[in-house]
């Protein structure tokens, strides 16, 4: 078991070299790089994408959230909270985020885990021990460990130590990054990274700023530096680009075409795969739990025809068409005229009742 320092308040995780603030560990992940992987989701992100499907990963603080279906209404949490940040209402538990200090006394007190913490501080050794439990599955599948988030580069010392330790253990490593990081940090992580999952979302700088809070200049620059570093070190195709296709936002053929041109011009030889990931709306409850009004809450999933247009744009953009993949859920289109749908957009289900 990891050491859970549950009394730690919500301080910034960056710069803490001995402990990492981790959102969760996802074992038997089949979507975060090659093979079977354990994905370590870091907490804290420099971007705030409107469509973010892990909104709980954005803040670099430990946060509390409330799961309605688990609450038994005992109000032990309200009695326990010394900051008076919790108040029951007709619509559920209201958490005053300004008052909440992240002391987690309420999650301790809650008998049914209806109040849960987003964020656990892990010591490096505990985290490594935890992910190494699946070493045999990594070995059989050519998989390994993926650092994702949030943004791992926001906790550079911890990320570096983790990657170095995993490499020393002979484990395949992947770094899933949004690219909004100093090159100094990225360049230190790359030698311990077997494969880089690099998000490229939007070519238009103004739109990028509007959608994510920052322009894309540093991201595009880093993408080129990563690519050239990989090429220089004789590691072709070890960069996988990921592009979220968000209706009304990034899901425009012109954007996809331009992204493709950028990849062809600047990243050629380095990119082994370009994943187009369709928008999904399953995270709505997380926004609700965090008390955030999600502007994309009412947005529909992408239709088949639109997705095909994006795929065609990407394949026609000059990149090797063989590297382009489409994944993610699509709008359910039944009825006679509905085009044939790809099977199984719904992913792994783990556990469950037998």
């Amino acid at each position, binding site marked *: *078991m990891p050491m859970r320092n549950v009394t730690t308040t919500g301080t910034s995780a960056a710069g803490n070299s001995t402990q990492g603030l981790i959102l969760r560990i*996802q*074992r*038997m992940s*089949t*979507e*975060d790089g090659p*093979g*079977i992987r354990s994905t370590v989701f870091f907490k804290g992100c420099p971007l705030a994408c409107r469509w973010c*499907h*892990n909104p709980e990963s954005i803040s670099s603080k430990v946060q509390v959230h409330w*799961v*309605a*279906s*688990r609450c*038994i209404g*005992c109000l*032990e949490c309200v009695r326990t909270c010394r900051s008076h940040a919790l108040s029951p209402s007709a619509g559920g538990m209201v958490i005053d985020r300004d008052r909440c200090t992240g002391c987690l006394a309420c999650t301790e007190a809650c*008998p*049914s*885990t209806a109040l849960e913490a987003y964020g656990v501080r892990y010591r490096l050794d505990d985290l490594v021990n935890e992910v190494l*439990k*699946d070493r*045999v*599955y990594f*070995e*059989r*599948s*050519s*998989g390994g460990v993926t650092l994702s988030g949030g943004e791992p580069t926001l906790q550079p010392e911890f990320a570096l130590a983790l990657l170095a330790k995993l490499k020393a253990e002979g484990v395949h490593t992947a770094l899933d990054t949004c690219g909004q990081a100093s090159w100094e940090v990225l360049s230190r992580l790359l030698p311990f990274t077997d494969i880089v999952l690099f998000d490229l979302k939007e070519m238009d700088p103004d739109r990028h700023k509007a959608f994510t809070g920052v322009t894309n200049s540093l991201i595009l620059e880093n993408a080129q530096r990563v690519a050239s570093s990989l090429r220089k070190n004789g590691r072709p195709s070890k960069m996988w680009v990921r592009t979220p296709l968000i209706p009304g936002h990034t899901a425009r053929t012109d954007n996809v075409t331009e992204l493709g041109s950028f990849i062809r011009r600047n990243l050629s030889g380095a990119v082994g795969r370009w994943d187009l*990931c*369709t928008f*999904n*709306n*399953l*995270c*709505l*409850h*997380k926004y609700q739990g965090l008390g955030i009004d999600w502007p994309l809450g009412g947005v529909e999933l992408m239709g088949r025809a639109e997705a095909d247009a994006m795929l065609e744009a990407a394949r026609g953009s000059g990149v090797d068409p063989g590297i382009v993949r489409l*994944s*993610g*859920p699509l709008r*359910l289109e*039944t009825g006679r005229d509905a085009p044939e*749908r790809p*099977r*199984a*957009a*719904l*992913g*792994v*289900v*783990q*556990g*469950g*009742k*037998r």
Partner: protein
Amino acid sequence: MSTAQACVAQKRLKQPKNLSPRIEWLRRYYLEGAARRWNNEFTAWTTGTPWDEVFDETTFYIVPETYPFFQTFRSSFRQAARKVDLHPDFWTWSIAERRAWFVKEVMVNRLPQEILPGDLLCGARFNIQTSLCLDERETKRRNRLMFGKSGVRRAVKWFHDHGYGNSGATSGHLIPGYERILKEGFKAVHDDLEARLQALDPREHNGEKGAQLRAMKIASTMPRELASRYAELCERTAAGEPDPVRKAELEQMGRNLRRVPWEPAGTFWEAVQALWLTHMLVMSDENYPGPGVSFGRIDQYLLPYWRASIEQGMDREFGKEILKCFWVHANTAYDAMVRIGNNGITAGYGQLITLSGMGQGGRDMTNELTFAILEVIDEMSPILEPKPNVRLHRNSPDELLDKVVEMIASSQGSPFLLNFDERSMAGMMVEARKAGVTHLIHEGNVHEYAPVGCLENTMVGNDRSGTVDNNLNLLKAVELALNDGRDFFDFVDPITLEKEKARQDGPRTGDPRTFRTWEQFWDAYAEQTRYIIRRCVDLYERSEAVRAEFCPTPYVSCLVKGCAEKALDITRGGAELNFTTLEAVTFATTVDSLLAVKYLVYDRKECTMDDLIQALKSNWEGYEALRPKARYKAPKYGRDDDEADAMADRVMELWCEETWKHGTVSTKRRFRPGMLSWNYWVSDGFILPASPDGRAKGTFLSNAICPSNGADINGPTANANSVGKALGGLCPDGSGDYLGYYNRLPNGASHTISFNPSILKDPEHKEKFKAFLRGYAHNGGTCLQVNMIDADTLRDAQEHPEDYRSLLVRITGYNAYFTSVGRELQDELIARLSHEAL
């Protein structure tokens, strides 16, 4: 017999494919059930004496659902029984000789023989209920032992009513020595018996040994005489057959039956014919239609015949056609009570076949017949029998795993069980050591093991391990430890409303409210565990002794090495390997309950022992804040949490070591441990009171070695790792019990993991799933059932979110707990899954 899960039929309807008109007709005709012109339902046969008994309920003591019907079965079979004219010397013979003669008389001279249009195999009717062949004095004694005031039946019912589980000497559940019959024929069996009979001294000749060998000799001629009846029928039918192709087939079938199973088989067709006839007569001899009468490694012992016939020009598809006829025949076991449904035994009879697996020196034994049989399964399924179990190991070829994964993908759930050799064989090596039979199970032959029924590992042709005979709820010991050796409640019979006060059944281990440390509670639990095991052992002895005295099966004894050598019936302990298995039920519920007691009362002091006991006695009512702490905050087995899994290890070691200490007195069978659970984990949840893990009375217990429902929140790899650790884990230096593996359960353990179908959505993911199976072979248990989540599961989760907290849905890089995503999105996920299933 099988776990409800391990052998559950698939919900999603895969369609058979590539069936010839012949097989399509046979399959459709089979599915007409009771509407067929004739079928294989039970016929009953009596000696005609006024005291005769035709039904032996002993074999159903492990099926509590049938208890209320025993009296009905007993009388109705007797009433419906047809009288058989007896041999003039009949009543001068031993019970075994009478029984051998009677069963043979019924099979050869009374039951009609029939052949279906196009069928390539003979051997149609075999479900019979025959007289126990006892005289009046024997019947009186037997009935007193069975039905008297202190008889077995009452003791069995008491054991079940009070939540201990069930136990009884059960038929089937072995792998007979079929390979010998193919190689040598029954002639060799007969001649060997004759030689042994001649070698007896006069005293033995006139005693029990002589009687047993004579009985077996009678039985060994039954297949020849039945085969010759069928041969005559083939010849007669061929004579009137206008179609020259069919005529030739019938003539060949006649020639086959003139040879086998008396003579060794020469061709593939003969081998399969011999196998079927030999097998179906086991079910006749035991009056027991199928459960667990298993074939072993058919892709190994049929291979020489397959190769020889292919070389002689047999078309590969025709070889498969013979196998498909065999498949249809195996399903007719279900006809036993075709008019009233599935005969109250089980929906999965478990005539198990084993495919692939390891050979000498770790060599892989996959061959061309393995793939031909997998094709047959694929093309025939969905079909219930025979059940396949595919043995995997570290050297299993990619080609085999590709086929396995492909079939799982197209069936939306596994059409077979997967057995894992290294872990299984480690368990067999433990058995050899513990029972002192290292001359019979050792490094040189342990790879010859095969599972019985579903996953119960045994050796082949010389082994009866009573793999389903004792099913004990470990959780009962927790209840007794919490109440100083007494049941929580007085027992009220649900039918008669008769009340029985709770007594001091278990040892007095002290009032737990006075225990100051967790270890004191553990000691009480350990003492109660030893008690419930002893109680189970004592109960088993009683039905075992009655069976040994009154219910010989001389034909089965012909097929199991040791019986002829010892001149001892298999029901009396004749087999070389002579075990009975204690299958522990409620493992995870028990482990989680102990973890919860430790966490709530001792480590965290969330409540007092008194609070906990009161909460359990009130079925958690009034303890709404304590129950979720027990359910959700206390540690649980199944998450790859080393501390929690250490408790699993401790529980496992305790009950296994205790189990090895026991044996039967009447038949000298050693007890060995296993974990099956069949459906008891569902039904006994209504008998056992609330448990400290937060489970309420009336809800499911844990199944076999699986984590408790919803406890495995860290996914399939964590789940598998916990199971491997509970079995003993791996030995760092590569020694262990076998090839670096430990395994406390020679019988093996049933493990089910549910996946979303999208784990197999494309070739890339199929490769990942293959890698998971290879990882499971290293870290996991002995046997895995792969289930696929379907829309029904999600609907159930929508209605019962508390049972599905760990149900994770994943959309390309994004996870959410199904129960927390909100109704609308849940509906969409359900619609999506239903749609994709179409």
